[in-house]
C-alpha cells in the first residue's frame, strides 16, 4: 500500500511517499497512524496529535475510523489552507 504525506506531515516524516506492508491488526486509518507513530521519532513528531491530521483514501476525504480494506493509496496531511 502506498502512503503519501503532504505539507508539515511530509516535512516531519521526511518522506513524500513510501510503500508499506500492513501488519495484522491495522484495520483503520486511526490504527495506521498509531502504528506509524511507533516507527521512529520523525513519525512520532508527525502523528503525535492524530486529531490534527486529515486523511484521504484513494484521493477522497475519509475520517479516522475509515477501514483500510482494498485501499491502494492513503494520504495524511494537515487541515487544508488553499483557496
Amino acid at each position, binding site marked *: 500500500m502506498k502512503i503519501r504525506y503532504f505539507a508539515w506531515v511530509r516535512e516531519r516524516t521526511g518522506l513524500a511517499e513510501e510503500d508499506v506492508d500492513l501488519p495484522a491488526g491495522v484495520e483503520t486509518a486511526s490504527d495506521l497512524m498509531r502504528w506509524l507513530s511507533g516507527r521512529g521519532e520523525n513519525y512520532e513528531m508527525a502523528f503525535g496529535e492524530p486529531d490534527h491530521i486529515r486523511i*484521504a483514501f484513494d484521493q477522497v476525504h475519509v475520517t479516522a475510523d475509515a477501514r483500510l480494506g482494498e485501499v491502494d493509496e492513503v494520504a495524511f*496531511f494537515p487541515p487544508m489552507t*488553499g483557496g
Partner: protein
Amino acid sequence: MAVSPTIRVQEAPFDIRAESEKLTAGRTDIGGVVTFTGLCRDEAGTLAALELEHYPGMAEGEIARVAAAATERWPLLGLTVIHRYGRIAPGEPIVFVATASEHRRAAFEAADFLMDYLKTRAPFWKKEHAADGVEGGWVEAKAVDDAAAERWK
C-alpha cells in the same frame, strides 16, 4: 446536470478576462455572472511569497466534487474553478471562481459556497516565505473558514 464545469489546477498565472468571457461567449440566456478572485497579500510588507503545495489528482477530483455539489444545488448555466500551486508573489491571483446563471441570486450563492468549500476541502497547503528571507511556517487553517463552510449544511 445541464452544465459541465471547467476545472483547472495549474502553476501558471491565468487570464481572468479570457476565463470570464468563455463563460458567456455567444450566449443570450445568462442574466448574471459572479466571479471571485483570491489574491496573495503581502501582509503589510512582511511576506515575500506564498508557496502552495497540493495533492495532484486529488486536487482536481475534490474540486470536481465541490463543483458538482454546486450544480446540483443551484441552476447554474456555467461554472469555472481555477486553482494555482507553486510559488505565488503578492498581488498575484491564487484562485478564481466564476458562476453564471439566469438570475443573480444563484450565481452569488454558488460562488460563495464554492469558495467556502474549496477553502476547507481542496487539498492545498500554503507556506509563507517572509520578506526578510526567512522561510516562514505553514499557514494554519482558520476556524472562521470552517464556520463559513458549515453555513451550507
